[in-house]
């Protein structure tokens, strides 16, 4: 059995007939020490999926309407509050998109990291350990930084502090939810590089959530692409990036701006992501799909293993030219 297994996860917002199905039948698995990237646009359900692993969605309005999230064989969705607190931070740690807003503005960063230690490794809740962690994530002069407040640090440094805080309890999985989106490209490269190093050093698994396929290649073993609450393609990172099979993955890849391209126009995906609760019938991507056929609006295609380890939710998939 995999270390983390999500089976047919259903997450709704609101109840009964008016429920909006934000995540609709997502299944994923992750082995210890592996890195999985969950890719998709805003509103695809990728962050909702990530937050549900430690049951962090505010409920209500979120409703865990079905499926299982098995962590080391235990179902997170049926855990008691006390057990859940052990999981949060202890087994699964989070790094979020906006480090500035995710650090508590009124506490010194040293104390915020120490709190994570007190909660999960009280025997080492010391300044020395906090300094070690700050050094681990590449913060210069960590001794001097213990007493800093979050607003005194740059965005990149704040994100390093968030990572140090997430690593403090020695989790087995680090969930990074768009950790670089709010940062400059140079700092983005620093943070991704840091995550790659830390994974090698500490052997934890990483679940990276991003909308940019461009940062996937540097870190991922596997990739899952989400669209409108469903996974549309899943496979090993190298293969998927070299030969994306689903028309959505192909389109998403082409929209990443390239420095070396000679074409002036960027390729785009026409239209916009459907609103939650207004997903099209049949294949949810069909109104924006370049290869859609008439029956795509009728039958909802299943996610099928088209080639070994390559799962695609499209019966008409083609290899890219």
């Amino acid at each position, binding site marked *: 059995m995999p270390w983390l297994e999500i089976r047919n996860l259903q997450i709704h917002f609101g109840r009964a007939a008016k429920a909006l199905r934000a995540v609709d039948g997502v299944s994923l698995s992750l082995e210890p020490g592996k890195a999985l990237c969950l890719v998709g*646009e805003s509103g695809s359900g990728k962050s909702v999926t990530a937050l549900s692993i430690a049951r962090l969605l505010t409920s209500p309005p979120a409703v865990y309407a079905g499926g299982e999230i098995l962590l080391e064989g235990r179902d997170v969705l049926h855990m008691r509050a006390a057990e859940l607190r052990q999981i949060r931070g202890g087994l699964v740690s989070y790094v979020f998109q906006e480090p500035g807003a995710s650090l508590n503005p009124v506490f010194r960063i040293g104390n915020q990291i120490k709190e994570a230690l007190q909660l999960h490794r009280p025997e080492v809740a010391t300044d020395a350990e906090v300094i070690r962690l700050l050094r681990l994530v590449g913060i210069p002069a960590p001794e001097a930084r213990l007493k800093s407040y979050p607003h005194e640090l740059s965005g990149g440094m704040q994100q390093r502090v968030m990572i140090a805080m997430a690593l403090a309890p020695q989790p087995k999985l680090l969930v990074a939810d768009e950790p670089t989106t709010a940062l400059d*490209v*140079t*700092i983005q490269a620093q943070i991704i*590089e840091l995550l790659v190093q830390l994974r090698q050093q500490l052997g934890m698994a990483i679940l990276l959530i991003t909308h940019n396929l461009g940062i996937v290649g540097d870190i991922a073993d596997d990739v899952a692409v989400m669209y409108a609450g469903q996974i549309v393609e899943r496979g090993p990172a190298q293969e998927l*990036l070299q030969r994306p099979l689903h028309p959505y993955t192909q389109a998403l890849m082409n929209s990443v*701006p390239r*420095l070396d391209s000679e074409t*002036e126009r960027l390729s785009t995906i026409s239209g916009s992501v459907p609103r939650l609760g207004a997903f099209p019938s049949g294949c949810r991507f069909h109104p924006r799909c370049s290869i859609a056929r008439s029956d795509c609006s009728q039958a909802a295609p299943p996610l099928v293993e088209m080639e070994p380890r390559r799962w695609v939710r499209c019966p008409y998939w083609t290899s890219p030219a």
Partner: protein
Amino acid sequence: MSEALLEVKSLKVQFPVEAGPLTRSKDFVRAVDDVSFSIEPGETVGLVGESGCGKTTLGRAVIRLVEPTAGQVIFEGQDLARLKGAALRAQRRKFQMIFQDPYASLNPRARVENIIGEALDIHHLAPNSTARRQRVESLLKDVGLDPSHAHRYPHEFSGGQRQRIGIARALAVEPKLIVCDEPVSALDVSVQAQIVNLLRDLQQEHGIAYLFVAHDLAVVRHISRRILVMYLGRIVETGEARAVCQSPRHPYTQALISAVPVVDPNSKRQRIILAGDVPSPIHPPAGCPFHPRCPVAEARCKTEVPALRETAPGRRVACHLAK
């Protein structure tokens, strides 16, 4: 070479570091330090750099949202830095701005038709309400939005659609120059591409010039004819967009380029990962401001400030070591 629409000469913007009301501040943030460039009509100039490099301040100083400390901003032959009152307001119509955060820059309590219509009202561009409505609808159509959504509020639109509303508002007064301040940084890559393409189309149709400010070179490259690379308030490299991206001469530009995310898993390019952050512009490093982070810095870089010199036709680099 045709007549420049905008010519910026030795522009400086300094902010005093906060001090008491009875004491004068001795320290200044040199946000923009001796910057010169020009934009021709209908041309796009890209301005790239990290947070805190002064690119946003420069963009704002160009259209007098920030008061320049010294230098000239010549727009159609008039020095904007010296214009006042009515004369400045008359010029304001000719340059507009699009902001990074489409959520924050639209009044949440105003309907889209009024957000766009207000610009028309201020400059008396719509003689009556019918003309106003028609103009708003055609603007919405121009930016790829459904004209029947004119009565909706900003929160009813997605991030990309809100940025389109911001663009429509800027277009309403038929400007000659739009300063785009990180217009796509907050958007998904797929939406970024749509907005960049839209800006290109509008430029071809209306002949608008853009100053396109961003931190991602790959985006800037796609829309700009020329690129300015900025570091700590100074231009460190400038040239044709393609040339700058294909053969960057300044070590900073090289680092920026290597930081751009790439999809191709086979590209085994050498990543130059810059250490640390941009230093404080209050006490910039002596010599070349980039030397503390520069992978190839030599002894003289610590003492001598490199001049922005021409290394090839149309190409200027501020680095002692650049050839």
